[in-house]
């Protein structure tokens, strides 16, 4: 990965990582590596996620009861821990997403008032 490429990446806004993880898990249980990859993939490599920073977040989400974890076997026959969204997590995701959308609309409104 070159230097230019990494400059194009955007640091995550504080707190938004939780939402991204929850969103990723909407399509089914995934392990930590899978979560990291799908965030990168879906943001078209724009969002920079240091893989290590996923783990404290995962622990926190577990603590809150929004996700649960279970060891399983990956496609490559490797042992991996799979995270699954709970009902509470789903609710949390809806709440966070709508809050995020309001935030984005507000910021967009400030940045481009004339375009309406």
């Amino acid at each position, binding site marked *: 990965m070159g230097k230019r490429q990494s400059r194009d990446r955007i640091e995550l806004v504080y707190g938004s990582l939780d939402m991204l993880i929850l969103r990723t898990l909407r399509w089914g249980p995934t*392990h*930590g*590596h899978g979560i*990291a990859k799908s965030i990168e993939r879906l943001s078209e490599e724009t969002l920079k996620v*240091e*893989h*290590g*920073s996923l*783990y*404290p977040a*995962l*622990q*926190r989400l577990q*603590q*809150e*009861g929004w996700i649960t974890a279970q060891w399983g076997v*990956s496609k*490559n026959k*490797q*042992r*991996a*821990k799979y995270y699954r969204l709970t009902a509470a997590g789903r609710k949390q995701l809806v709440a966070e997403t709508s809050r995020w959308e309001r935030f984005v609309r507000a910021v967009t409104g400030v940045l481009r008032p004339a375009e309406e």
Partner: protein
Amino acid sequence: MSWKRQFAKLGNLFTRGRRTADLDDEIRSHLRMEEQENLESGMTPEEAHYAALRRFGNVTLAQERSREMWGWNSLEALLQDLRYGLRQLGRNPGFTAVAVLTLALGIGANTAIFSAVNGIWLEPLIYARSSRLVTADLLPIPEIQAIQKQSTAFERMAIYQKHSCLVLGGAVPVRTANSYVSDDFFPLLGVKPLLGRPILPGDTQPGNALVAVISYRLWMDEFGDDPHIVGRSVSVDHKPFTVIGVMPKGFDLGVTWGGGNSGLWMPFVYSPPDSMNLGPTSSFVARLKKGVTLSQAKAQLEAISARLAAEYPNQYPKALRGYGRIVTAGVSGRTDPGVRLALLILLGAVGFILLMACVNVASLLVARSWTRQRELAIRKALGASRLRIVRQLLSESLLLAVSGGTLGLFFSAWGIRLLQVIAPPYTPRVDHIRLDGNVLWFTMGITLLAAVLVGLAPAMHASSRRVGGTLEGGLVGAFAGAEMRQSHRFRSALVILEVALAVIVVTGGALMARSFYKLMSVNTGVRADHVLTMHVQLSDLACNGLSFPTRNPKESAVRPRSTAQANQLQKQITPAAGCALANEDILDGIRSLAGVQRAACAGMGPLQGGVVTTSVRYPGAPSGMGLYVEGQQGNQLTSGAIEGRSVTPGFFAALGIRLLKGRDFVLADLNHSDVAIVSEGFARKYIPGNPLRKRFSIAEDEKGHHRWMEIVGVVNDVRDRAVHESTPGPAYYTPFFFGDNWGEIIVRTSTNPMVIVHAIERVVRFVDADAAITHIETLDQIIADSAAEPKFQTVLLASFGALGFLLAVIGVYGVVSYSAVQRTHEIGVRIALGAKRGDILRMVLREGMLLAGIGITAGISGALALTRFLRSLLFEITPTDPPTFIGVSVILTAVVLLASYIPARRATKVDPMVALRHE
């Protein structure tokens, strides 16, 4: 929701190891996957590995951050502190042992005394909702019935009347307290019988079969826990009663109010009188309705009493009103205020012991924290906050306190057994003293308190800016003047505190010991050695003249010479005359025994009090009671009380009471009740001039007539109620009426009185095989028993005093000698600069003297404030007794001086060069 999360975090603490491994696994698996992908995109294995690591970021940081999410950081830090503290304490086993032992003594003593308070005082009675129970004594039955009808304060009420009775049919004839109870009594108290049934409404109807419920103790002692006791017949006061039930253990015990200590409960059969007739008084027990307070109930009772008095002015004299004082029977009403005060004093004394133990350990910790300067300085340099260091020190004191508390629990178990052994006889509920939940909570509480007290001083000391401020300061300037002075001041304060506490505890113990010594050497007015007393109650058979001396006491005592003769005798002999004959036979028989010097009879035994005439009217008292002296106007008894006692000739000689004037009674007096002998105090107080041949009476009837008694003799004063009675009260003696079927026999022997007991018993049984002989005691024993309570309190308070003294010696010596060792360097410098050893010794002693002086002054002010609570326990000694205070001060000053002198002397002997090199 939030508590759930906290709970999960708490759970995390215990699964920590497993979860850490789990997280490591997960991260490893993540890295493997990333590596795999990198390999697949064509990297070399090495490149793939490092790229994966780069992508991941700081692995350790991720692990740490993740772990932080799990738990309470502060709690983890505490665990870490505790682990560290444990290592520290393990490194100083000597220090740890002394500290733990000191705290264990303090906590153990407190736990033991608290368990006594808990068992005797706090533990609820076995009665249902006992805290709502109230009781009142000495009320005329019509008034109780009026209360029952009119009062709205009570849920339920039961009447009981306490008596004493003679029970035959058990192992031996026995006298016991019994209560006549209404049918509400057992349902009200809500305790089911162990066997059989309680008294039911049918039982209290007049004319029903005679039934009785017996106590657990009577069942055990007299009926050998016979499982078929229900239905058995026993003789109560010579009437056959059927046992219908046995109450469980604890039902009869532990209360000072009416139902307590009864051996039997019988139905209270009462037919209401036609008019307001006061008759004998009774008591009631009732449960307050929900929301009704004791004072509200009291007000209601007073109103009812006032109404009755207005309605029946003649039958209901003013003096009676308000006599039946209502008290709580549940929790606090069952131990008398004296016992409660004594328990509180003990608790206070033992609290001081704990305080001293804490000061001791705290001063040891402060001394040690000085040597730990270097360690603390390093920890500070490595970034430990001051708070963290304080927490570290506090966690060490917590460890010490918890270990001390645990060991203290073992000590207290031992202490409780000791308490039960030395407790005065008949202390209620002494078997309830044990380590239960309440006591364990208490122990936990004082353990935490001790942890704070012990940790506070060192923590304050360590967190002060100077100490361990900088690494250089801690390492190089360990003996820098300012720090040294500050630490020194701290220790001085602890010494002063220690001395002050010691003064208080030791003074309390010394006062008790001195008072007890006075009590033991008091002149009771009798010669107590070689005197045997026993209570004898004759059977009806003997008093009816049907019991005759037989050659063989084992044969039936009832052996009429012939039926005709018996019938003849029966006509002639009234019960009184029969009793008189039997009594005379018994006294004659005893006098003829070898080893007996004198024998006499009395209505009441010595030191058990007599019939009391008081200046206060009480229900049932004949009207006009008081003291009237011929030739003087009106009632002379305006305050206090006088005691009357009936005695046979020889009573004074048997007890060694001196006849000061006049003569003793003679046999002929026994049939005339118009003579009396008075005590010296009586004569001095009430009879002016020569008392002989003066006449007095103790009652005046409505017409102003008296039954005058002529004074024929004067004897010395006797402490008649109990040894610790402060001054002997006025007393008079009347001739013993031989026709009574019971009395106290008093025998003076020339040998050990207990040896003759058997022979005396044989004499009594010879005359009356069914006589109840109880309370066989020597007078020495009675005196010892009457002093048992002060003795118990003295033993405890004096041993706390001794323990306090020991702690003070150890504590003061520890701190002072430690600071002397600290000053070895300084002393070396002084000597090197030419100071004389004597000068240095004087300097050290002067400092010791100053500390002792301040400590003792503070301690004496504290003791003066506190010892007044001892007043009621002290005998002929004031709580501010100067010799005690002076003695304690002198001894403690000597202790402080010695504690300063010995280490100082050792320090001056050290070679100055060695001393200078000392660190």
